[in-house]
């Protein structure tokens, strides 16, 4: 007998962001997007930087979160996401994310030899995903009007 829903738990070191019953989760695994439905085999993976989306029922709009690195544990009836940071679209400060993006791009294009490439790259990716998630919410709002 397969469970009909998954308990989705999203925690970051500073807080618990989410504990909700959902029917579908998509998350950014380190080696590609992972789609999880109820009854998935136990799985452990590292997460990359990307969008995590979930639906609370088959007909509802997906909710999108921006997550940055971490781990996920998948069990047939539960998904635990341990992210370094995770934010809801409405929590994202779009202006700040844009600034961070500009900063990271500038740093990357400056070609400074002392540059920590990995760090700048991660900063860029992080800002991009935050912008993407924040925009998505914006467009959903516009459509629903």
């Amino acid at each position, binding site marked *: 007998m397969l469970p009909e829903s998954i308990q989705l738990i999203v*925690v970051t*070191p*500073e807080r618990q962001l989410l504990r909700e019953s959902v029917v579908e989760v998509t998350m950014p695994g380190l080696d590609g997007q992972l789609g999880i439905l109820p009854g998935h085999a136990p799985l452990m993976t590292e997460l990359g930087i990307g969008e995590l989306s979930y639906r609370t029922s088959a007909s509802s709009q997906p909710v999108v979160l921006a997550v940055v690195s971490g781990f996920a*544990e998948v069990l047939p009836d539960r998904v635990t996401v341990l992210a370094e940071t995770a934010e809801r679209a409405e929590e994202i400060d779009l202006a700040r994310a844009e600034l961070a993006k500009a900063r990271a791009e500038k740093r990357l294009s400056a070609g400074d030899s002392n540059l920590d490439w990995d760090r700048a790259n991660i900063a860029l990716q992080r800002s991009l995903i935050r912008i993407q998630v924040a925009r998505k919410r914006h467009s959903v709002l516009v459509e629903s009007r």
Partner: protein
Amino acid sequence: MPTLLDFRRRIRSVKNTQQITRAMKFVAAARLRRAQEAALAARPYAKELVRVLRSTMARIESPEHPLLAKRAEERILVLVLSGERGLAGAFNTNILKKAAEFYRSKPGKKFTLIPIGKKGRDAMRRAGFTFAGEYVNVLSKVNYGIAREISKLVTDLYVEEKVDAVYMVFSEFKNVISADLTVEKLLPVEKISTGEETEAEAASSQIDYIYEQPEQQLLARLLPRYVETQVLRSMLESCAAEHAARMTAMEAATKNAGEVIEGLTLHMNKVRQAAITKEIIEIVSGASYTA
């Protein structure tokens, strides 16, 4: 003999002090509440991480990672978490005492310190200790970023084999009137725990996962996170304990000020009465003279 005016001045000054201590008590109480909430909010992550780490460790036959490597403890790094400010009763003294006790319990070893919190840093610098780094003004707003920076420094030192063991000395918040002074081993990672769970939870069942990445790689990612959560937890605990200590100290100070005011008022009234009596006697004796 102090005059009435002297008494009034003293009382006014003690009252001012009392107002300050009372305000400080309220501020400490508010901060304590915030610190407790932060500590509570950090718990789910720590708990889940420990569970995941433990089951990953169990899956690997011989877990290998630089952070697990045991060496003879010759050079010891100690993180000492004190307060940023004084006026918190014996909070800072107690922590320094506990740290000193710890050094004495391991004679002949080479100690390097990382003070977290200004008060401890100042005292330990005066005592002439070597620092591997110092973090001041970070406890007023504890966040994961800081904990991460500190644990990066510590794990790097450990991996480069510059130190053989890392300990943390901090106050663990129990309740408003008491805190436990704790010494915890941070590195090498030996016993994985959240610091608050029971044995039964620790022995919970293992699950056979599919691993997307090799287990060793996952372990290599999980272990630093674990160290980070440990550092974060000790910072949050210490922060809550500091505010609790300050609250208690300021409450006692407010009460003492009240007692001093009472005593002074009593004295003042006596002096006033004596003066009045003296005046009456003068008038009466003057009147009897003219009569």
